[in-house]
């Protein structure tokens, strides 16, 4: 019995040593609920980055990503972020979705924990806090690219807009109003829908009634797929346009989405730099397809932490949020997949925007970024 107890004590001590060497970062992703598909995509990129960081021994210690489920809801997101900050003691948390990000940002500021968003695109995410960074261009840039394309290049001047009743939808509406006016277009109708709504035949009737040249959609997740299907089924035959949320596999596979156009950040997966080549090759080998921008963004977000943490360890400084922020400000540029980028003072990175079309179950670039 004594030997067993001694063995258990040794095992416990060794486990303690192993845990002590772990460097934990957190992720507040939707792992269940109507937007869980996004969580899966985000995690695919983040997990690959963790594998690469540990395989390369970039850090003194094993990098571990601790997940908590936000369900893409602000309340659940705050509970999840609180746990990561106060229980797991993570100095760096990956965040997603505009509503969730706005809810968790004050926690990051108060506790000096860096929050990094690679999925939410609400324009006001740029101004939340020095501790809130964005590795994705925000919706104002996407709307700025889409509005002139619709009005000036395609001659579609009368736009009806359907947007989700949350910070992302509201921000997209304001941007669209401004951009249409600036480009000579007209917003002929705007229809907000609750985030949990699933029946849209009535909305389709209202949209048809405005006789638009095109319909712009600003929602996300399973709702946008249901919306597109029901618009088409209910006689809305006008071109559909949206932003980067349209790049999910569910939307690309939807027969009714054929011909829809959407904006997204431009990422050159054929960039010859070693980081891009390795990420794209390993992602293809693991998942049998090219990484989309969300997977790449969260890969970049984890690699950003690894680069900053490695620099801090070299200087013998602890891995705290404040030190990570200070190091980021001192670092002129970062090697992201697809490009070398710099963070602006407001913690955002800017990337060129391209326009894509859904065709044959995939997306095709129809207008490259200028």
């Amino acid at each position: 019995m004594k030997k067993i107890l001694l063995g258990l004590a040794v095992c416990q001590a060794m486990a303690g040593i192993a845990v002590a060497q772990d460097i934990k970062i957190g992720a507040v992703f939707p792992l269940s609920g109507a937007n869980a598909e996004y969580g899966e995509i985000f995690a695919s990129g983040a997990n690959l980055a963790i594998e690469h960081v540990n395989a390369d021994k970039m850090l003194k210690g094993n990098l571990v990503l601790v997940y908590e489920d936000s369900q893409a809801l602000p309340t659940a997101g705050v509970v999840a972020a609180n746990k990561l900050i106060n229980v797991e003691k993570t100095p760096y948390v990956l965040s997603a979705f505009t509503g969730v990000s706005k809810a968790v940002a004050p926690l990051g500021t108060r506790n000096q924990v860096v929050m990094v968003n690679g999925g939410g695109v609400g324009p006001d995410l740029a101004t939340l806090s020095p501790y809130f960074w964005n590795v994705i261009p925000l919706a104002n840039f996407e709307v700025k690219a889409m509005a002139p394309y619709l009005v000036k290049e395609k001659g579609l001047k009368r736009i009806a807009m359907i947007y989700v009743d949350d910070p992302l939808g509201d921000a997209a509406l304001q941007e669209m109003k401004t951009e249409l006016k600036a480009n000579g277009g007209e917003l002929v109708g705007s229809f907000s829908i609750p985030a949990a709504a699933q029946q849209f035949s009535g909305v389709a009737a209202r949209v048809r009634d405005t006789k638009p040249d095109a319909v712009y959609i600003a929602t996300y997740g399973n709702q946008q797929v249901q919306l597109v299907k029901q618009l088409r089924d209910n006689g809305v035959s006008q071109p559909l346009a949206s932003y980067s949320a349209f790049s999910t596999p569910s939307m690309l596979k939807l027969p009714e989405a054929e011909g829809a156009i959407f904006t997204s950040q431009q990422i050159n997966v054929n960039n010859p730099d070693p980081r891009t080549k390795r990420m794209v090759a390993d992602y293809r080998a693991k998942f049998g397809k090219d990484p989309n921008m969300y997977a790449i963004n969260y890969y970049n977000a984890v690699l950003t932490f690894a680069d900053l943490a490695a620099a801090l360890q070299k200087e013998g400084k602890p891995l705290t949020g404040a030190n990570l922020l200070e190091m980021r400000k001192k670092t002129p540029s970062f090697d992201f997949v697809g490009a070398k980028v710099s963070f602006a003072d407001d913690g955002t990175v800017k990337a060129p925007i391209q326009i894509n079309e859904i065709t044959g179950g995939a997306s095709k670039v129809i207008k490259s970024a200028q």
Partner: protein
Amino acid sequence: MLYLQLLVNGIQTGALYALIAAGFSLIFGMTRIFHAAHGATFTIAGFVFYEFYAVLEWGLIPSVLACAAAAALFGVLLNRWVYVVIQRHEGSFFTVFAASFGAAIVVQNLIAIFFGKGMVTVSTPLSRSIELMPGLYIAPMAFIAVITAIICFALLHYLFTHTNMGVALRALGENPVLVDVFGLNPKSLGKYAFLIGSVLVVPAAILTAATSGLNPAMGHHVMMISIAATIVGGVGSLRGAAMAGLLFGLAENLSLAFFDPQWSEAVTFVILFLFIIFRPGGFYGRAIVS
């Protein structure tokens, strides 16, 4: 023409809501078990239909049968292995509710594992609207939904008024102790309530797969409609659940003529609150006084 279009849409949505609510209303009314996993039964039925019809391409009838078998099996087994066991140990109403809620979450996650977390749809030309007159678009699926609802409720009416089983089930809903005194087995009758209530989700699940698509998390919305329709219709009244479903569908769509779409769901809850305040027994039920 917008009003007529919204009226037609409301009838289609209402027929779907009536079918969704009927199963839950039947189970809750007859057994007083708050079957929170009814939404999970709906999700299972929808995804089984999708798998057999759209993926394996077994054809309509075998797919419908497989879908009905899966829904019935889930409902009956959940009752037998979870609810009956809890009740045998004199578990409270809330213990059963918690178990049911847990089962719904497990099902949601299992479906996400097997089918993915995204949206799937069954593509059919029947869901595509045709312009019958200028500005009025109706899909063949609307007629199918309404006719299916009428057939289902006619069959249920016949079952509950012309068969011994139906009369016994109604008696179970009225007074389970008296049913026992008369020599009938309430547990056995409860099994039939779960069987019929679970199979009732099949038409709605198939129509939803074809019109708006399926996702693993859709059970919550199904439960919301079911609970609201059961309260407004009156606990234990299938006719009431059908009327309430239709009322919600009409109100949700007709309100679009006057308000922004973001208020359409609120309209449903305003109706619910009004009933709770002014007519707590619902359309056809009786006020429950404790």
